């Protein structure tokens, strides 16, 4: 039997990788992919908690379903915004979009 800590540590590793990616990457698409990694980590945690701590209730699983739903909406919207950004500024790198910087 796999202890719950294994799943939680895997989730922590994925989340830390996502944080690193969000901060280190320049391209908006790569940042979005790192955000997806973090969402996956959250889903793993939700399902692990649901399976180990409250097996008779499905709250964790329901939350994971909603995480996936919202993530799908978020990806569609974010990619449309990136597309607009590219058409207006001819770049998808977040550090080159600095019109608001003083």
């Amino acid at each position, binding site marked *: *039997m*796999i202890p719950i800590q294994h799943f*939680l540590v895997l989730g922590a590793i994925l989340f830390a990788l996502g944080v690193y990616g969000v901060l280190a990457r320049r391209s908006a698409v790569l940042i979005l*992919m790192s955000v997806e990694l973090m969402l996956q980590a959250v889903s793993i945690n939700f399902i692990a908690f649901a399976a180990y701590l409250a*097996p008779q209730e499905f709250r964790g699983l329901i939350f994971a379903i909603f995480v996936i739903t919202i993530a*799908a*909406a978020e990806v569609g919207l974010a990619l*449309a915004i990136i*597309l607009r950004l*590219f058409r207006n500024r001819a770049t998808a790198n977040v550090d080159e979009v600095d019109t608001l910087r003083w």
Partner: protein
Amino acid sequence: MTLEEGIFYVVAAVTVLGGLGVVLARSVVYAALFLIVALLGVAGVFLLLAAEFLAIVQVLIYGAAVTILILFVLMLTRARDVPQAVDGPQKPFAFVLGSALLGLLVTAIVTTDWAALGATEQITLVPARELGRSLFRNWSVPFEVASLVLIVALVGAVILARMEEEEE
């Protein structure tokens, strides 16, 4: 080490390698392909957690739809035509912060007494029928709100992406 643990370590290694590829790959397209590996690995983890419905949803939505969307945008933004640095100047800071966060989380996970919190030793399989019943009975309002969010977001995405053509 039991067979179950062996499978878990293989799946976890695949997932972590995919994640590392996403954040370290030099090419944006390779990063997107590594993302598919990571997402399929996570689907395997869901299977090990006896959430087979979510594993299937994961493969369908993430493994197919989301990655294809990302690859489409990579194609449309022609990100691979311009060879350039993919990482910004905050890389060392990001590494320090990521490692610190990982250390903090792992410390919290290891020091917590999970048995005292009621962690079971045996994963019970959740039948998809029960899950669906719970979703449509106890969670029907959030479900409807989620469908509203989805349609608003996707119509918004279409309008955002097509705005330029209408202006011309």
